[in-house]
């Protein structure tokens, strides 16, 4: 009985050992990106998925992958949430110094010109107006 339990435990350990441990919490990032390219007009799903992944990483104390704060920031920008977008560009920059050049550009340009959302056919939506 004991031997069988130990064998099971070993098997379980071997099985989990086989799955490569990822350094970052990716959530559904790649699947959501795929779906975003399938249906560019469904921007809400893309935005929500990124938000969920970031929340999960925070709750589980796992590392946020490179690029994710910025992808979320850009999705917010597409919705016209300029100020919130800038918060996430700042986070990307603070987490990854390699992103500084691009993120500074994104922060500078945020709100200066309207961003045309993915899948949009009409004219670009206005970026958030000043209070």
């Amino acid at each position: 009985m004991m031997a069988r339990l130990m064998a099971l435990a070993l098997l379980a350990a071997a099985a989990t050992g086989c799955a490569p441990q990822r350094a970052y919490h990716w959530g559904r990032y790649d699947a959501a990106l795929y779906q975003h390219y399938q249906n560019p007009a469904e921007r809400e799903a893309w935005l929500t998925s990124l938000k969920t992944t970031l929340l999960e990483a925070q709750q589980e104390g796992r590392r946020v992958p490179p690029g994710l704060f910025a992808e979320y920031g850009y999705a917010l920008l597409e919705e016209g949430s300029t100020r919130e977008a800038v918060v996430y560009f700042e986070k990307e920059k603070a987490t990854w110094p390699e992103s500084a050049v691009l993120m500074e550009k994104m922060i500078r340009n945020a709100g200066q010109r309207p961003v045309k959302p993915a899948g949009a056919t009409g004219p670009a939506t206005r970026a958030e107006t000043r209070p």
Partner: protein
Amino acid sequence: MNLTSRIGRLALGALLAAAVSGCVAVPRKDLTKFVAAQPRSILVIPVVNNSVDLTAADYFLSTVPVPLAERGYYVFPVNLVKRLLEDDGLADASLVHQAAPDRLGNLFGADAILYIVIQKWDAKWILVSTQVTVEFEYTLRDAKTGTVLWEDKERMQYASDSGGGGLLGAIVSAAMAKAAPDYMPLAQRANWNALSYPGPGFPAGPYRADYKRDYQPGPP
């Protein structure tokens, strides 16, 4: 005398054959340029698609960031990059691939640029089985000099065979695969394979614990 020399020749032949087959084990890539450049960040630009499937480029792009970032490099947000390039009038990926690397490098502040070309992304239906083939060419260039730091080519294929159910079952399963052949698992496998190290990939980046420790220089 004649016989022994004959045996000797045979033995020599066998030895040669063994040596030749021994050599088949992965010729190690020359990574000296890669290691000298010490890239920390990699810009993945939109994928050039030479296949007949128009949707392949974007779908494939979604499979690149995960395996690449897990190698320990900063990977620029692929969707943001793609959208910025489109806004700059570079919606055509082949235009981006033709642009000067240092121009792209400066625009994004990247150390290296990953160029990917899809050569094959197709499904063939042979009687009742579906054969899906993907083929990709990867080139990593130094963003300042344009020097090729690393390159690889991956080709993956699978054939869905009739898994029982007789001829009718086989026809049904082929029809289903025909409706939606699944390229994504093959694309993912190709990327993980291309980037594995030791293997065809490149050494660990600065965000991995084995950075500068896993590199094995090739034979002189």
